[in-house]
């Protein structure tokens, strides 16, 4: 694919990065600059994650991300298949590193116990809060049944790890990379645990005859 990016085609990027001397030096400088811009672009979209951190420290974090991403790009050059612009492929390493840095910053200081806490009231806090305004006895009975099924699965059918990951990510909205770091694992393993948990929840709901449209209508506020 002959796509231009900052004056270089994909082939020119690969040639320059794989050669030596001044051509390689220039390409590395240009690539690092692009990766730094990608990291800063992500940080700008997610400044809330850095609440309380001063500007110099944020800029320093971005520099670290760019450096880390540059190393990752160079280590994965052989994986580039040419099915996108080279720079698009490279940006994702910077964005990935930037996201992990930003989310880690946001969630540091929260204990694992706090992030794993679960009790039954967390299911339908909102439904209970405005119950009087729209709920009917029939609707309430069905909602209770659904919540019972979901609770049963969470408490009895999931493995301890699946339950912990689900509670952290679904109920406490802990970002995946924070869970990865706290549990000392990787994204694939966490995704698989959530996937297995979803399959068990889906199978249990369907086994009891509940389909998605009906469920959503049950929990949606009447207009």
């Amino acid at each position: 694919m002959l796509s231009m990016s900052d004056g270089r085609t994909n082939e020119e990027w690969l040639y320059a990065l794989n050669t030596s001397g001044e051509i390689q030096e220039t390409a590395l400088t240009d690539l690092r600059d692009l990766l730094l811009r990608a990291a800063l672009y992500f940080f700008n979209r997610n400044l809330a994650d850095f609440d309380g951190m001063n500007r110099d420290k944020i800029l320093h974090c971005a520099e670290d991300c760019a450096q880390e991403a540059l190393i990752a790009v160079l280590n994965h050059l052989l994986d580039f298949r040419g099915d996108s612009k080279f720079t698009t492929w490279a940006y994702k390493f910077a964005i990935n590193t930037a996201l992990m840095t930003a989310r880690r910053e946001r969630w540091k200081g929260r204990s694992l116990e706090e992030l794993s806490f679960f009790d039954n009231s967390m299911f339908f806090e909102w439904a209970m809060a405005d119950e009087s305004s729209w709920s009917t006895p029939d609707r309430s009975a069905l909602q209770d049944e659904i919540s019972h099924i979901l609770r049963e699965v969470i408490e009895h059918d999931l493995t301890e790890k699946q339950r912990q990951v689900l509670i952290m990510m679904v109920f406490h909205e802990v970002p995946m990379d924070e869970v990865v770091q706290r549990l000392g694992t990787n994204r694939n393993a966490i995704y698989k645990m959530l996937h297995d948990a979803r399959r068990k929840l889906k199978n249990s709901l369907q086994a009891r005859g509940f389909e998605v449209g009906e469920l959503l209508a049950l929990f949606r506020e009447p207009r």
Partner: protein
Amino acid sequence: MDRNRFENWLKNIYATREEEISCSECFDLVSRFVELEVAGQDAAARMPELKQHLDQCRACRDEYESLRDLRLLEEKGEFPSLDDLQNSIQ
């Protein structure tokens, strides 16, 4: 959990497939997906497994959305300069 999140969670439960691609496979494929979108093609139809993963995985979706938006800016010649990006962090 608020109402919107609960609804989305139910939708995700029902959209679950027996086989789903991993985060690593998503990372590997996402630049191709973005490139198709930038070219105005129906990336979701061409790469349904990737789309399904993005719908289920918040981390991968956040990265994808940033990559797509950055790439669209670049396509329009509007990817901010290093100075502008540094200055916009206060």
